[in-house]
């Protein structure tokens, strides 16, 4: 990572030239998404129906929320594996411990946010204050969480209250998917957050932690709260997953682990920290879920879906890097 551009937040939005757009990982992944979307529309003309759009948002949102949280941690140059555990834990809690009716939905939000916050706080404490390697300590918390999930529900089953299912995977008046509103809220919160001191600190820590500490940024506190926020987002990912699947599965989180990191990377966030953003991670997640849908509708044998998935992941990153380099070259 170059020393220049270590603080993308310092760049003022607005007046974005083509060059800046091309150098922006978020824009690149958005183009990939639109391409896939067009292919899907040709294959399945009903994609743009209210049902089709709701379906797209519902399928993408659990991974997108997870990627938003994981992306935050990656920005600080950390790795957070606990996502798999938190998703499994909130999923089984929501599928077993809730009354039906509107209170069930309110409690579900509280449980998802609360469980995520607790796990995130433990992660944050271990990484920021005990100074363990993030990948190792979050691996341990992930394992503990999946153990607790197994205690709550030892086999797939349970019943997610209808209020949660319809409340979070349904549509609002005017055919607006609830999941789209949730996604929009997260995006708006992120846009606000990155303008705060905390947001600046997240980028600064990822770019150069030592320099950030010397510049007077409260590194430990900023890291701690980043893991907390990430935990809450994983919790909500578990909530959305419960709403979409309507059932509990103590092993349901594991598929999200690697996919989440893939989404973050495709979304243009650098694993070396300090570069990228949450919106890119979320679009990256949406792209991955859309890709599966496109491959399915194109009639690719499910045996070979993985080959295309792998190739598209690599290509998305390579094309993003090439356009970014071209754009930078033109700027010089």
């Amino acid at each position, binding site marked *: 990572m170059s020393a220049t551009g270590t603080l993308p937040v310092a760049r003022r939005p607005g007046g974005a030239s083509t060059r800046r757009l091309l150098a922006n990982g978020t824009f690149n992944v958005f183009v990939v998404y639109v391409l896939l979307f067009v292919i899907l529309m040709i294959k399945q003309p009903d994609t743009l129906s209210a049902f089709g759009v709701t379906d797209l948002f519902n399928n993408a949102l659990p991974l997108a929320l997870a990627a938003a949280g994981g992306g935050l941690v990656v920005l600080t140059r950390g790795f957070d594996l606990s996502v798999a555990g938190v998703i499994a834990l909130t999923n089984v809690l929501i599928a077993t411990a809730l009354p039906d009716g509107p209170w069930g939905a309110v409690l579900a939000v509280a449980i998802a946010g609360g469980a995520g916050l607790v796990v995130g706080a433990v992660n944050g404490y271990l990484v920021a204050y005990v100074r363990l390697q993030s990948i190792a300590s979050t691996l341990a918390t992930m394992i503990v969480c999946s153990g607790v999930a197994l205690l709550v529900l030892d086999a797939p089953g349970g019943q997610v209250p209808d209020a949660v299912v319809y409340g979070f995977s349904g549509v609002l008046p005017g055919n607006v998917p609830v999941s789209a509103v949730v996604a929009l809220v997260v995006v708006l919160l992120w846009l606000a957050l990155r303008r705060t001191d905390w947001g600046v600190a997240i980028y600064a820590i990822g770019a150069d932690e030592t320099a950030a500490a010397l510049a007077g940024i409260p590194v430990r506190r900023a890291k701690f709260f980043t893991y907390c926020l990430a935990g809450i987002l994983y919790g909500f990912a578990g909530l959305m997953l419960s709403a979409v699947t309507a059932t509990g599965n103590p092993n349901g989180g594991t598929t999200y682990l690697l996919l989440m990191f893939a989404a973050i990377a495709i979304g243009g966030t650098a694993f070396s920290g300090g570069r990228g953003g949450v919106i890119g991670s979320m679009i990256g997640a949406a792209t991955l879920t859309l890709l599966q849908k496109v491959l399915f509708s194109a009639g690719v044998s499910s045996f070979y879906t993985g080959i295309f998935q792998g190739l598209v*992941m690599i290509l998305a990153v390579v094309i993003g890097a090439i356009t970014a380099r071209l754009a930078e070259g033109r700027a010089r």
Partner: protein
Amino acid sequence: MSGLDTARIATSPDERRTRRPRIGSDAWTVIGLFAVTIVMILASRLISPSFGSWDQARAILVLTSFVMVIAFGQQSVILLGGLDLSVGSMMTLGGILTFSWIGGSGSALIWGIPAVLLVTGLVGAVNGLGVTFFRVPPFIMTLAMGIIIYSVALGITGGTPSGQAVPALGWLFSHRLFGIPWVILLMALFAVLGTIFQQATPFGRRLYAIGTSPEAAAIAGMPVRRIVILTYAISGAAAGLAGILMVGYSGGATLTMGDSYLLPSIAAVVIGGTSIVGGRGLYAGAIAGAFLLTTLSTVISSIGIAQGWRTIIYGLVILVALVLLREELSLWFLRLRSRGGR
């Protein structure tokens, strides 16, 4: 990871004093891990009298060999500042190829094993090519490669690999020299060779240099790209070797045989004190980490409690080991020792 940077700043005067025993701090982690593991084996006697015996220790050592072999490749890649998420699928690939190419024929071993290692090594080299020439982040490159390998294996085998058990490989596990299974002796040799490779060969030392700063290594005239590609090839071949061993141990191959080894391979390396951002760590640490993880899961799986509790204990012990063996503590140990020496 990056927390270490601030730790270094904070303790820089101490560090200057203890510069020479820097390796010492890593070695303390290794010794600590082995000590924790042995205590765990002995303590398991409290659970059941049949535990803590030589038989059990032998069984654990045999099981450790798979993680230990994969962890060598994984650790070399992590030393470079990379990560190899394809090792699980690569192990499966190695197992499936061994199962179908070698089978019951003892004479096929002679060409079969090198062929399997070559194939997995070449696929690993493709990872390296992607990382160096196409600048794909290692995380994405190896994750995608893992998915692709799995998918190809699934397509070609149709879900169930066909082949035959390899008795010659099973022999490694069933026959003993002075009461020690041959596979353990082989692993001891592997550990020694692996350590020599990383610590005493120019190639090994360059791994540390590139992991610390690829730019500086390139300026110093190191063929960075070639070394990176070769290291990913080594990781592929190591995972392939684990697949070969697994066929010998289990007598068969399945499409998921490598899956459960991906996270342990990374965990063993990181628990063993290797920095995930590269440039620092010992293979002995990864071996100790593999030994700890295998012992832990073996001991826990024999306790008659719910799966959930077992999983929780597994995670908590890893956490405790991490907290006990963190860097500040080993530095403190060293300081204590040097004070006592004065």
